[in-house]
């Protein structure tokens, strides 16, 4: 009697050598029991039964309770095999598994495996393995189905105008949310597996024929090269594939909005989803993402640009306002008009700390409130607001620990940091605020200038998947209509040039064909963007 193919003391190695399935029913059964630790494993089901052939054939099903839909197993597998199968087993013209697969099982998809490792792979993700006596192969039947959260509002990327739904934890639901928005056969979702232990499903999404293959290859290469045991979250995957792990700046865009993912895909980016979490990462990322919110494209041009300008100012404020306050009050008092200077001096009267310490105190207090706000149970959440506003603001001023003007400064800087529409980017700015405050305290504007140039040089040297971080400004590509401000929607007929797509033109040059002005332009310059001509390149 052959020994069990896999020693139960070793961890399963998904990339290890393949062991062919035996014909002997008992060997297979013992293999299943030992590999999946049937004796101690409570959710594993091995269902032995007999297929109603003439004479009957022994068989068993192997699946995990909770990962499968019971009804499918009852009505789609067991019922037809046990009750409805009238196969003459002596007729050996057709392979028994083929007959079962083709005639008996109404399952929407099944696969045939010839080695034990394939069977393990499929059973682990919720499929059911059917072993039949006398067959050196296994049928892997689609029975996946488990409990998950339904599609809800995106939690952290809110918009007023635009779709509200966000991703959930179920990969197929998430890919469907994107596919619903990109009805093209060229939209491809590649399946990859990462993690020896977690075997996380990773979906690599792009539009074939549009996205640069070299970008796709590079992303795929990096994901496949990861050799770890456990990758449950896209945030961890991000850290495994980013170019510069030590920089403070994020190098991929994270989003939980399907509309945002599909918009990025249509521009030639690559999206990566990891099973069991609602955050999708988009590569590459450029610095412009710091300003961009999906809502910008849904709003009319003047409103969108107003928001963009606001965000640009917000980034400057959140990074530099507290630092500038320290610098001006400590070194450059002459800059302030006398009245304002007197007001600041008067409000600081009685405050025992130097400005830097005062700012640090309030900054740390604010970060505490923010962190507490995230961790605190929903029931007592509102308390934090009260504690933050009353105790830390008013009481600190009343106790002469901080000056009222400083409370305003920190509050504005804090508000501004919330305006940045990207979670990681907002983190980067918050972290960077502290070194700038320190530099301003030590050297005033000089220190801030040094910090700014340092950061600018650093940004200019960063790359995300080979794309310079400051694209399309430095290096300058052909003028882009979507950097800080965006152009009118009908003028944005180029996809972002730095992605080097296979098709760089998004739309015809003349989009508003009904408009008299557009018709004149079309008529005057034939061939310059007529329908289907893709504009002048």
């Amino acid at each position, binding site marked *: 009697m052959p020994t069990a193919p896999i020693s139960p003391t070793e961890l399963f190695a998904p990339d290890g050598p393949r062991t062919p399935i035996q014909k002997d029913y008992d060997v297979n059964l013992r293999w299943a029991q030992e590999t999946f630790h049937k004796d101690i494993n409570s959710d594993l089901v091995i269902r032995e039964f007999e297929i109603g052939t003439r004479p009957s054939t022994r068989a068993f099903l192997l699946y995990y309770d909770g990962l499968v839909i019971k009804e499918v197993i009852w009505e789609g597998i067991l019922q037809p095999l046990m009750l409805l199968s009238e196969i003459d087993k002596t007729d050996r013209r057709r392979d028994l598994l083929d007959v079962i697969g083709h005639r008996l099982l109404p399952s929407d998809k099944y696969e045939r495996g010839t080695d034990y490792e394939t069977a393990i792979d499929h059973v682990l993700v919720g499929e059911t393995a059917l072993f039949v006596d006398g067959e050196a192969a296994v049928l892997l039947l689609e029975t996946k189905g488990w409990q998950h959260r339904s599609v809800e509002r995106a939690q952290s990327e809110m918009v007023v105008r635009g779709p509200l739904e966000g991703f959930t934890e179920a990969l197929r639901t998430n890919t469907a949310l994107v596919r619903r928005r990109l009805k093209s056969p060229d939209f491809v979702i590649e399946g990859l597996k990462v993690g020896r232990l977690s075997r996380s499903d990773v979906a690599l999404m792009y539009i074939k024929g549009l996205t*640069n293959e*070299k*970008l*796709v*290859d*590079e*992303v795929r*290469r990096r994901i496949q090269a990861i050799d770890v045991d456990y990758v449950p979250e896209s945030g961890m995957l991000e850290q495994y594939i980013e*170019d510069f792990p030590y920089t403070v700046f994020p190098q991929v865009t994270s989003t939980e909005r399907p509309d945002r993912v599909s918009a990025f895909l249509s521009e030639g980016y690559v999206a990566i989803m990891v099973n069991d979490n609602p955050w999708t990462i988009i590569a*590459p990322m450029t610095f412009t993402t710091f300003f961009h919110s999906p809502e910008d494209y849904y709003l009319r041009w003047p409103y969108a640009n107003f928001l963009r300008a606001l965000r640009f100012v917000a980034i400057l404020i959140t990074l530099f306002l507290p630092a500038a306050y320290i610098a*001006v009050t400590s*070194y*450059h008092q*002459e*800059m302030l*008009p006398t009245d304002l200077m007197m007001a600041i001096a008067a409000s600081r009267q009685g405050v025992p700390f130097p400005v830097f310490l005062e700012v640090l105190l309030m900054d740390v207090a604010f970060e505490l409130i923010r962190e507490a706000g995230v961790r605190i149970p929903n029931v007592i959440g509102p308390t934090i607001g009260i504690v933050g506003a009353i105790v830390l603001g008013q009481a600190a001023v009343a106790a002469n620990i901080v000056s009222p003007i400083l409370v305003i400064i920190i509050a504005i800087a804090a508000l501004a940091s919330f305006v940045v529409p990207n979670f990681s980017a907002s983190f980067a700015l918050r972290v960077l605020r502290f070194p700038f405050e320190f530099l301003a305290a030590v*050297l*005033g*504007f*000089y*220190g*801030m*200038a*040094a910090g*700014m*140039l*340092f950061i*600018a*040089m*650093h*940004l*200019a*040297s960063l*790359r995300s*998947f*080979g*794309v*310079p971080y*400051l*694209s399309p*400004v*430095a*290096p*300058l590509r052909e003028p882009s209509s979507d950097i800080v401000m965006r152009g009118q929607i009908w003028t944005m007929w180029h996809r972002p040039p*730095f*992605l*080097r797509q296979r098709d760089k033109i998004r739309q015809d040059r003349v989009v508003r064909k009904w408009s008299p002005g557009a018709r004149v332009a079309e008529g005057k310059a034939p061939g310059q963007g007529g329908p289907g001509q893709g504009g002048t390149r």
Partner: protein
Amino acid sequence: MMADGAGGRDGEAFPGVRPGSEEFPAMSPEWGHVGPAEFVAILTILLAGKIFLTFPATLTDRAKTSGWIVTTVGAMLAAVGVLIIISLMNRFPDYSLARVSVLLTGPIIGSVFNILLSLFFLVLAAAVLREAAETLVIGILPLTPLSVLIAVMLIVVAYGTYLGIEAVSRTAFLLAPWLLVPLAAIILSDIRYFDLARLTPIWGTRPAHILWLGVVRSSIYAEVVAVAFLYPALRRKKPILGGTILSLGLAWFIITAVIVSVVAIGDVGGASRTAFPIYFMARLIHFGRFIQRVEAIFVFLWFFSAALNVTVTFYIANVALSETLHLPNYRPLVPAMSIILYTAAFLAPSFIAVINFEADVLRVFGGLICMGIPLILLIVAVVTRKRQPGAMDRSDGDNPRPSGKGAAMDGR
């Protein structure tokens, strides 16, 4: 271009370099890529950055009312120098000037040239560093020790040099509007103090003297030789000549506009006795009750232009030295050279000594080094008919690189 451009260069060990022949061994620093716009930005800042320091004062002191003629004559001569440098570099599109000089004149003379160049740029960097720090001590941070200011700027400079000319040129392009707009704002805000009569007599000291000064002081634009070190970093060689001339023109315009405005505002006496005329122009800004004494904001201007300037000059000093020492990459030199630069910045006993050294030594003999060496090399190249193999094919078009697999796409 598409297929080529998508090929990455990042995976190569030394991306700027093609496998060389025996005569042209492939050994060269990691250049990175500089695009035409960034090229113009960095070169213009390098050439015109001196206006924030003592340069307008010293030039006005020497040329009185005719500083603008001196800068104009100097610019014309520098344009000739540009033609020499470009026609030399067109023969060796993948090499820096330092390598070309060794290739053309042998290891001994070539190394002498390189050491001269390296030394010139190192001293220039030290002088600018010192002057910028002195400006700030005098202007806004009177109690801060000079050593702290210099050390802080040096950290940024060393970091930029280490990152390479690609990152520095991109930073320059990014910051160029933030330098130009405030500069224009300073000049325009003070336009009410303009009195063009202060610019007379037009010929200043006297025509012959002024023209001679223009020849001598063409070293104002000596830094234009940086083109010969940026050359291998530009993938497309065709726009280089136009870009260099454009930068020279822009620098000439900025320098001349500043020289004219400092004299028109402060008179020859005022402009030449003030260490940093632009700084005092900034102090003059006065709009109503709210906008006055805003010169502290212009610290950013001073810092950005001076630090970018020093970074490029320091980079060239490092590259020239690394070629002399046959190092495949200049980066290991940066920490050691930074310490030398820091020390060199303190060599001058006083601020006045720095100003005089820069005005009467660097800005007079600098031109000889920066224009003379390329001229000699060009003559040698023409006489010996040496050129990089295949240089002619690519000097006017795209410069394909073998694709690597380190990164998905190339940014340029």
